[in-house]
């Protein structure tokens, strides 16, 4: 996990600290951006934007709002969803879906050389918690989180009643919260 002190060093203009931050977070952020955008080229562009924004705006980070990793993930997801929407507005077809996004991920899959044992354990715990959800709940959460769809858009996409979609997301998130609570109770994410 990323030490908040690393960000404090970056605030002071420490280039080495910034390099370290990249090494510790780039695999995760790349995975996330690729899952959302589905395009390697676009993912790289996005990551470049995100890290430059971190370099400039790192002073805005406040530990009271979450861990450094949570901040980076929120920022990356937010920027990626913006790109996805901008692409949709320009009339381009979204290339992401569960199936389509799986192919490039498999090619590059493998642990990051900077990944700690705690990271590996966390990945296993989260992966197991997500796959243990009913498929419909998992799908509804992923459509919201990785494709930026509102519950109304998800209901239209799946041709399901709005209430059903809301319930699926709520139940899925609630179950994940119960299963993974210890992950941030242990201090990793709080």
């Amino acid at each position, binding site marked *: 996990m990323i030490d908040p002190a690393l960000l404090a060093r970056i605030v002071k203009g420490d280039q080495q600290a910034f390099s370290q931050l990249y090494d510790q977070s780039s695999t995760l952020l790349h995975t996330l951006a690729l899952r959302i955008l589905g395009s390697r080229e676009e993912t790289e562009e996005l990551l470049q934007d995100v890290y430059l924004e971190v370099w400039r705006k790192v002073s805005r980070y406040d530990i009271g709002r979450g*861990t450094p990793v949570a*901040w980076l993930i929120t920022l990356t997801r937010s920027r990626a969803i913006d790109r996805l929407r901008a692409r949709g507005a320009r009339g381009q077809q979204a290339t992401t879906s569960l199936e389509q996004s799986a192919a490039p991920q498999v090619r590059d899959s493998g642990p990051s050389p900077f990944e700690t044992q705690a990271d590996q354990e966390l990945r296993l715990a989260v992966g197991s918690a997500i796959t243990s959800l009913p498929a419909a709940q998992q799908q509804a959460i992923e459509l919201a989180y990785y494709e930026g769809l509102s519950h109304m858009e998800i209901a239209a996409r799946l041709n399901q009643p709005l209430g059903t979609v809301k319930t699926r997301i709520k139940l899925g998130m609630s179950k994940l919260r119960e299963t*993974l609570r210890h992950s941030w109770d242990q201090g990793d994410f709080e």
Partner: protein
Amino acid sequence: MTHEELEDAVPLYAAGALDRTERQALEAHLLSGCPSCHHALKEYQSLAALLPFGLVQSQPPRSLKARIMAARNPVTSAVQDGQKDPLKPSLEPGEWMNHLFPPITPARSFSLPWAIGFATVALVAVAAYVGWTFTSRLSDDAARMQQLEATLQEQTTKLVSLQRVISERERSLMELQGDASRRAHDIAELKEQLFQRETELESLERQLASRSAGGQRGRTPQDELAALLRQPSIRVVSLSGSEMAKSASGILLYDASTQKVWMYAVNLPECLNGTIYQLWAIDQKPKSIGTFHMDSGETAHLLVKRLPDFERAKKFAVSLEPPGGRPEPTGAVYLVSQS
């Protein structure tokens, strides 16, 4: 939206599934300081930030780091900033959180033109004036508010005490009602009893009337004797058996108010062959008072006759006479007075 709806919206917010209107409603609610929603959101946002860990990892190309490190100079940054403006994100990450948790370190500004500095000073001065005016108005309002609150509290206290009095009155009224209802019931019962007693009384009066009407005609000698024995002025003469009937005896009672003589005789022998006992009052000569008959098995007999001149008689006697009796004694004497 109700609080329950807002609370339900928290996991959807963290997953990014709310539309703009719903998002704004929830953010407004969070800014109002709801602790339960705030706590839930922190947890759900921590959870949302964990989700990418569940993805199959994919590493970026090595060249990316070099590009990023090279692009970090201020000129490039400025160019990057310029490029980013048209793509201003609708969702600044954790933007609402800035309101809840103001950053500890404020955003830095590396170069401030002096004009901005001057404008800032002017703005601060204006703000201070406005603030002072506003504060004094606020303090006036606060004083008025305190006064109103004090009045309200006083009225509330009065209201509470009045409510207590009303509730006490209601309770005693209910008790009185219960008492009145019990008394009404008692009165009804008493009326019923009175009616029964009146009916019984009427019936008794009727019986008494019929008895007293019949009593004048059918009054028995025994009844009169019983009444006679209770009178203190009664005269008593005892009779004893003669040689003819040693075990016989009798008694004479005289009531001067009615001038009646009562003779009660016991153990006299049975009258045979039509013979009859005759009672005599003896002054100068014997005078018949009346006759009576002793049947077989009869041991006592009561004879009642009028005798106006009882006081003049010196002696009384009972003799056995031939059927129908005689004007003067002819048969044996069976009972005779002591003096």
